[in-house]
């Protein structure tokens, strides 16, 4: 049911000896180093707030991919963690006066707890039911946010102070803020990568490939799924917390179901089950939205069309296609599982 392997497993040459889990191909390493280097100098070339938004969504998509790409669970409710964490961080920083690092921590822990509750209910069904249940639960959280007093309903929490990191680095300076977001982004993506390439991650993949066999091997599949769900929720929460600090507000937009759809699109477009895919997909979608915001082309129509085209003819996503192509194989960055 939840087997997504047809897109995340491009035809690898059978002769190639699989490397040990966690190893990175030289070409892949080069891309990562170049990417991080580029991100370090990017704020001098591009508008920093735009870049921070890009990083937040790329991290969000990576967190989502942890669940869909490596555990085979399609969550249609990740907006709850993203937007929920944004609310938690905004409230704790603005009303309780916490410093930003603790505010982010509150957001991440809050998202993880939310993930634990939602996950415990949702993992009782699989496949399409799982998607519908997560969607319904996140919609429930949306209505909670609409009515709870601390979220201020339609207005959202506005004027969130960025504060001083560790007490002395002013985040009001957008360059400082950018590097803070960048560090958290790298940490978040690294966490995701470590999880995927650990024995734990291998069990997740085995669940994705063949759940019945994983059960027969003695793994308590439900617990692993729940753990993956909570980790994914926590990382999505990290992205949401950072977004609340960057834009200095938290609103209903971030908990609405459309946001859950957006993160699916980012992951699908970039490549489900790849490390770089969701990052690239997130960057593309955010850039597209930014670009379209000034034109009068409605974003929803285009988003819907891209969705349909991706599903029909482009299921591996951009990075998945590169991996599967001759170039990818020649560079030795064939995707492994």
């Amino acid at each position: 049911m939840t087997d997504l392997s047809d897109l995340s497993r491009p035809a690898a040459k059978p002769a190639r000896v699989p490397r040990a889990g966690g190893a990175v191909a030289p070409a892949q390493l080069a891309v990562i180093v170049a990417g991080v280097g580029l991100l370090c100098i990017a704020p001098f070339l591009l508008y920093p707030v735009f870049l921070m938004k890009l990083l937040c969504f790329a991290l969000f998509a990576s967190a989502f991919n942890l669940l869909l790409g490596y555990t085979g669970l399609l969550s249609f409710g990740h907006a709850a963690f993203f937007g929920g964490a944004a609310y938690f961080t905004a409230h704790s920083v603005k009303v309780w006066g916490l410093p930003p690092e603790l505010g982010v921590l509150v957001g991440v822990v809050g998202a993880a707890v939310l993930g634990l509750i939602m996950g415990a209910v949702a993992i009782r069904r699989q496949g399409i039911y799982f998607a519908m249940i997560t969607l319904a639960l996140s919609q429930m959280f949306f209505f909670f946010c609409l009515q709870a007093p601390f979220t201020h309903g339609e207005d959202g929490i506005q004027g969130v102070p960025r504060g001083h990191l560790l007490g002395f680095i002013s985040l009001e300076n957008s360059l400082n803020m950018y590097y803070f977001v960048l560090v958290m982004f790298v940490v978040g993506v690294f966490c995701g990568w470590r999880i995927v390439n650990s024995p734990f991650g291998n069990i997740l993949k085995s669940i994705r490939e063949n759940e019945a066999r994983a059960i027969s091997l003695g793994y308590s599949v439900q617990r692993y799924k729940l753990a993956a769900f909570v980790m994914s929720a926590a990382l999505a929460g990290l992205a949401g917390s950072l977004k609340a600090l960057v834009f200095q507000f938290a609103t209903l937009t971030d908990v609405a179901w459309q946001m859950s759809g957006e993160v699916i699109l980012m992951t699908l477009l970039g490549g489900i089950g790849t490390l770089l895919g969701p990052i690239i997909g997130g960057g593309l979608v955010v850039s597209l939205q930014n670009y379209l915001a000034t034109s009068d082309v409605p974003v929803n129509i285009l988003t819907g069309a891209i969705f349909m085209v991706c599903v029909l003819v482009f299921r591996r996503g951009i990075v998945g296609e590169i991996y599967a192509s001759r170039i990818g194989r020649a560079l030795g960055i064939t995707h492994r599982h």
Partner: protein
Amino acid sequence: MIMIFGIPVQALLGQLLIGLINGSFYAILSLGLAIIFGLLRVINFAHGAQYMLGAFVGYLMLQHLGIGYWPALILVPLVVGLSGAVVERFALRRLYDLDHLYGLLFTFGLALLIEGTFRYFFGASGQPYATPAALSGGNNLGFMYLPNYRGWVVVISFIVCIAVWALIEKTKLGAYLRAATENPKLVQAFGVNVPLLLTLTYAIGAGLAGFAGVLAAPIYQVSPLMGSNLIIVVFAVVVVGGMGSIMGAIVTGYLLGLMEGLTKVFYPEASNIVIFVIMAIVLLIRPAGLFGKEA
């Protein structure tokens, strides 16, 4: 004034009636979803958009072609059903051999596309659709005032639900449908045109959504956003009922509509989320859903 649990009977019955009307829409929509899922194994995320499409096609027919409510009630489901058939024939069909999630994702994209298009041309605000003259006015039932149109909605949607149930459970065509659900290859080997059956099924499901849209037009305003929030509630209804049985989808739809109405009386703040809460409870106690077959 008569009181039950400290609530005036009039308020209670009034909300129960609203619940029954909402439940009628839940029942028709979840019925359509269940039929499509039963045969195509696709969760039709575009169901809400097709419901909205139905209301808009009815509205546009009235505005530009002068076609009134009664012909629209027949024509709109045909138009929406035909559009569904086109979608199935040229896109959805390619996804059957893949993971079922792709069907969900494709129809999600379709829903965004349809809703985005209507929003672009008509804005987010609602357009009024007049109640047909024959059903204007209302009756005083003694304990409450019942607008005729709402009574009509309850009656006709019940009839349609039963008719569709009978079509699937009691006719030859329905027997083919059910057989194809069990084992499509075998049914094809017997000479039944299964691909055509699949197209027809999706068209029927979409047509039902379109029909619900026309029914809803005079009650709720015709707006591009009318379907998107409703569909999530209907998903919850489907999860509660389990998609194993057609009758299950219908009964659950009415039941949850009434529960929602009751909640509005006793604890209005929770009325938006009560269906989701019930869904969570049902999942914890009986993961397969109330009428579900598989574990």
